[in-house]
């Protein structure tokens, strides 16, 4: 055990953006202390400290006890987004963003633990770190235990995927117990029995289901199913039908089949209320398929159509990443800088900082 230092078995290379941010913090702290030292008068400092201590004690936020509620005081019950995405802000400042079709149900909600069941769909969670409650997201065939972090969980009948934007989560299932860090992604296939119990039989063209160890990817590959050979979903003139068709294809992992109905919505129904969301969804798919140029077009189109505030952070962060990928460094830097200015913790935070700080 102890013959050689354990450090040889450990990862010991902190990322450069983290050290860069720390250096900025050190300079700020040293600057503050030196300024304070120059101007400080002993009596004044003692008085100020006493006043600050008093104010601090009065203003010290009392820890919340009892169940989490919506920020407006309403109790946290089952919630779903039917026609359009929803954002839930909770009393501890954590947020849950439900994509269309997603549903969550509180299983336990008290001063010690918040356990939410994601029954279907895709949801993004941003959990305020350091709170008194332990957060658990139950995805059916695996659970996600949360430290302070932001991450996305997507569940359908056959699989569960978890993608961490920043922070760290622990994913626990029958065959998996993994800790995921920023940028990492895991896709877990449903056990065959669970899938048979809960879903209708798959179409003949669908790839056979397999139960195997989960795959951890960091961070590029996202498509968990092989490119589908099934025909593209039927596309009608009705934009809602087209969107449903695209959503179904996406949830089943047939990413390429979702493109045509989304493009039809954008081409034939640009005034539809969900057209901006269709453009954002199309960009997500194109990013998944490494089509940076297509994603750039879709993101620009989404902006022209009007990005809902809920998605602004994702769009500006994705825009910066895509501009960088297409070689437009200056555009990427400008976009990243604007994004960091508007949002405290946008997706891809470290990459955005890297883009801003790049020489």
């Amino acid at each position, binding site marked *: *055990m*102890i013959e*050689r*230092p*354990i*450090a040889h*078995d*450990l*990862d*010991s*290379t*902190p990322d450069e953006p*983290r*050290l860069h*941010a*720390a*250096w900025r*913090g*050190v300079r700020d*702290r*040293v600057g503050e*202390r*030196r300024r304070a*030292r120059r101007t400080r008068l002993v009596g004044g400092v003692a008085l100020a400290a006493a006043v600050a201590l008093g104010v601090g004690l009065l203003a010290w936020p009392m*820890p919340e006890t009892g169940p989490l509620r919506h920020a407006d005081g309403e109790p946290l019950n089952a919630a779903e987004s039917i026609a359009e995405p929803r954002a839930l802000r909770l009393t501890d400042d954590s947020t849950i963003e439900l994509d269309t079709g997603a549903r969550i149900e509180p299983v336990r909600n008290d*001063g*010690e*633990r918040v356990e939410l069941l994601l029954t279907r769909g895709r949801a993004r969670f941003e959990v305020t*770190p*350091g*709170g*008194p*409650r*332990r957060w658990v997201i139950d995805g059916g065939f695996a659970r996600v*235990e*949360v*430290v*302070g972090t932001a991450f996305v969980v997507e569940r359908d009948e056959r699989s569960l995927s978890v993608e961490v934007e920043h*922070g*760290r989560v*622990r994913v626990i299932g029958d065959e998996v117990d993994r*800790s995921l860090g920023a940028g990492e992604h895991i896709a877990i296939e449903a056990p065959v029995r669970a899938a048979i119990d809960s879903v209708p039989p798959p179409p003949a063209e669908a790839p056979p289901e397999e139960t195997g160890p989960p795959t951890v990817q960091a961070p590029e590959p996202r498509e968990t199913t092989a490119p589908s050979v099934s025909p593209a979903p039927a596309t009608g003139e009705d934009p809602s039908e087209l969107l449903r068709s695209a959503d179904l294809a996406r949830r089943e992992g047939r990413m390429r089949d979702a493109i045509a109905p989304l493009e039809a919505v954008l081409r034939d129904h640009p005034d539809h209320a969900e057209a901006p969301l269709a453009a954002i969804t199309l960009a997500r798919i194109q990013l998944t398929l490494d089509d940076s140029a297509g994603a750039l077009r879709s993101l620009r189109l989404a902006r022209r159509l009007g990005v809902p505030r809920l998605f602004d952070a994702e769009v500006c962060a994705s825009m910066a990443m895509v501009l960088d990928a297409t070689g437009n460094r200056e555009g990427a830097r400008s976009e990243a800088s604007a994004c960091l200015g508007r949002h405290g913790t946008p997706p891809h935070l470290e990459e955005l900082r890297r883009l801003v700080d790049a020489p």
Partner: protein
Amino acid sequence: MVAHDRAPSDETLVKRALASDAWAEEALFRRYAAQVLVLAERLLRRRSLADDVLQDTFADAFTKLETLRDPSAFRSWLFGIAVRRVRRQQRKLAMRRALGLDRSLDDATLAMVASSDCSPERLAELGRIDRILATLHPDQRNAWMLRRVEGEKLEDIASIVGCSLATAKRRIQAADVLVRGALGESR
């Protein structure tokens, strides 16, 4: 002190920093920041707290640099500041846990920060060590980690944690017994 080919020594950098040379301060940070961050992360088992410790450690060091009597001993002096900052965070964390204000999980245990080429058996072993370390008093755990994880010399550990050599040895030996027991090893 660490030798750096063609790079100025710690002593030189400290003297230049004392003469208000901002470049020398940044050079000292660049030289030791990664080591301090990794050390803090491993001792605290929390990534977010380690960032704070890193910044406070260097802020303390640069504002108290004139109190360093031997500039060539900058590294162990800096690590001493870091460990004192870590202890302060450990006390706060223990208090928050006792009051029920923090129930979040550790995210930088040995098993969690193991390198990707670590074998499953070694990972399991690190997991067992983590469980034992969680039961130790922080002073005992810190001394053991400095010795067995970081590979520091006993004299340096005594200086870093601010205790006598005999105390440092006693803490490490006591932890060794428990860790070896958990791993099923004899002395």
